[in-house]
């Protein structure tokens, strides 16, 4: 073992002699890569979802490469910290997130600027590798698609209270393709112009406290923005959309390795505007006021050091979905998960290498 280690080191010893005095390896940012692959058994056809960016997860029967995600993070200087998330699919790469956080504003303020996952709701700001189930809950998929990931700015403030209280507002471009959108469109002979840009405003409040070994975290969120949505079948919507969110997480810790966690989130969508339909010759307009709500609740039980199991219930309008999962986590860096539900079995494997930061609660 020692001999082998010496052999590995040898090239470096040689290199050290000729190393440029301007190399800066110590300043390399934290770099990590997360791989997520799955094997899917399914008898029913999947829900029709949007396919863009890094695509829908676990889409094909058989083997899937869901994503390979590159993370970069480092302080820029004493004042800023930069983080980027770059998911690769087999087709290419995109910048899912790239944002800068302030490190030292006074009085408990923090500004985030760039492209980032909005702090709307509980799950929205979490990366897919943090989800407790293989896909997003039903209300998220219906109202937000991949999630509310937008270019813009966030200001948040942690109150100087004895319990946790975090308030924030976001001004976002509003390009979400399920509820918002700013680009104008043409349906038949009707033309709808661009919405004002930026077109989306988000506000949120989160609070948390502990009762003994029970930790509670809850939040309310609000998003309001312009909508310009065009569907391929000659249907389109223009108007304004409001989203209301309420979430609650309760985690009870038995000891260092065992816990039970409840999580539930309700999202309500309120939209009013004009629906355009084009039948090939004429476009018809109709005014609509539409209200829709959905929620999910889940219970996850970490019953042994490396094992977790859980169930999730989803309801949106009259559509229901149940999922059950069992996880084996050999270390914090690897996870093997089996999920059953909606007429499918998903075996999902997730691995992380490199310097990956710890995750929030």
């Amino acid at each position: 073992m020692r001999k082998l280690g010496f052999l590995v080191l040898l090239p470096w010893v040689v290199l050290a002699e000729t190393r440029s005095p301007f190399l800066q390896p110590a300043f390399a940012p934290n770099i990590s890569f997360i791989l997520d692959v799955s094997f899917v058994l399914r008898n029913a056809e999947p829900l029709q979802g949007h396919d863009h960016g890094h695509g829908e997860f676990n889409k094909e029967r058989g083997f899937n490469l869901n994503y390979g995600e590159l993370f970069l993070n480092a302080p820029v200087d004493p004042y800023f910290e930069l983080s980027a998330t770059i998911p690769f699919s087999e087709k290419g790469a995109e910048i899912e997130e790239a944002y800068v956080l302030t490190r030292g504003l006074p009085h408990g303020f923090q500004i985030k600027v760039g492209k980032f996952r909005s702090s709307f709701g509980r799950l929205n700001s979490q990366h897919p590798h943090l989800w407790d189930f293989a896909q997003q809950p039903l209300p998220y998929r219906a109202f937000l698609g991949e999630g509310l990931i937008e270019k813009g700015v966030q200001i948040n403030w942690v109150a100087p209270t004895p319990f946790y209280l975090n308030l924030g507002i976001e001004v976002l471009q509003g390009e979400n393709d399920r509820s918002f959108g700013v680009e104008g469109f043409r349906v038949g002979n009707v033309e709808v112009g661009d919405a004002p840009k930026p077109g989306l405003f988000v506000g949120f409040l989160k609070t948390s406290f502990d009762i003994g070994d029970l930790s509670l975290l809850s939040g309310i969120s609000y998003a309001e923005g312009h909508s310009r949505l065009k569907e391929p079948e000659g249907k389109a919507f223009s108007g304004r959309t409001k989203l209301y969110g309420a979430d609650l997480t309760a985690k009870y810790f038995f000891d260092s390795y065992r816990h039970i966690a409840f999580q539930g989130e309700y999202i309500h969508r309120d939209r009013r505007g004009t629906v355009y339909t084009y039948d090939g010759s004429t476009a018809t307009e109709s005014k609509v006021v539409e209200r829709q709500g959905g929620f999910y609740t889940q219970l996850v039980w970490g019953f042994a050091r490396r094992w977790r199991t859980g169930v999730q219930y989803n309801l949106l309008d009259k559509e229901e979905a149940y999922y059950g999962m069992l996880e084996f986590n050999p270390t914090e860096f690897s996870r093997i998960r089996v999920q059953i539900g909606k007429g499918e079995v998903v075996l999902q494997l997730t691995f992380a290498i490199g310097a990956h930061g710890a995750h929030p609660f």
Partner: protein
Amino acid sequence: MRFLVLLVLLVSVSLADVRVVVTYPWIGDLVRKIGGDRVSIHVIAKGTEDPHFVVPKPSHIAKLRRADLLIIQGAYLEVGFLPPLLRQANNLKIQPGREGFLDLSNYVQLIEKPEVVSRAMGDVHPEGNPHYHLDPYNIPLLAEAVKEKLCKIDPDGCPLYEKNFEEFASRWRSKLIEWNREFSTLKGVRVIAYHSLFNYLLKRYGIVLAGTLEPLPGIPPTRSHIEKLLRLENVKIILVGVYNERRTARFLAERIGAKVVLLPHDVGSLPEVRDLFSLFDEILRRLKDG
């Protein structure tokens, strides 16, 4: 009028305490010993918890938000929970590199620094073994670092911190004489430990670590590894931390004729361990009984 202003100033000064957040209970006890009533202390981890697996509860963010000083154990022990808390605390004063931040691992000599690191080796700490507070010789050095930092942050309280430090250090010195005498009777005793948690103590007093139940740091015991440990001879004691499972240790102990000894690793890990003095007293008592 001038008197009134002075009075108000005095009252506000005497009420103004230094708000300190620490990651582990033993650091909290050290700060209490030096800071006395001038400091208020919030401890993130509980003594009964595995120090590697602490939950980043949002309630700690509220404490960090208002803290004047954050003191950590360092050497990557807090890497799993502190960075997200610190990022969300929106408090400039306690960020690494600022005056209100103290990493105690900088004040001691870390042992077992690996030459090469890879995750294939389990949960290795690139800077060395982080459980350095279990060498009683390190405690006065750490107490002095805490005293210096408190003096910097709160110069008005410095005379008190100096006085408390002198008292603490002299009490510790006399306890060290006793501990040295007692622990030295254990010199050469062969032990197995669940994790490399007590290595500083073992090294200080010449107790021989014959093996660990974990095949690699942070990886739970496996059958093949236990079979290897079964071949070890003359092992008197198997050390387990308060948060470790005990079944494997008992299984092995029965077969090799050793005794399982549950050792406290931090203040509050067992009801008897109320502060740093009783931590080492209790470790000694339990080792001698074993």
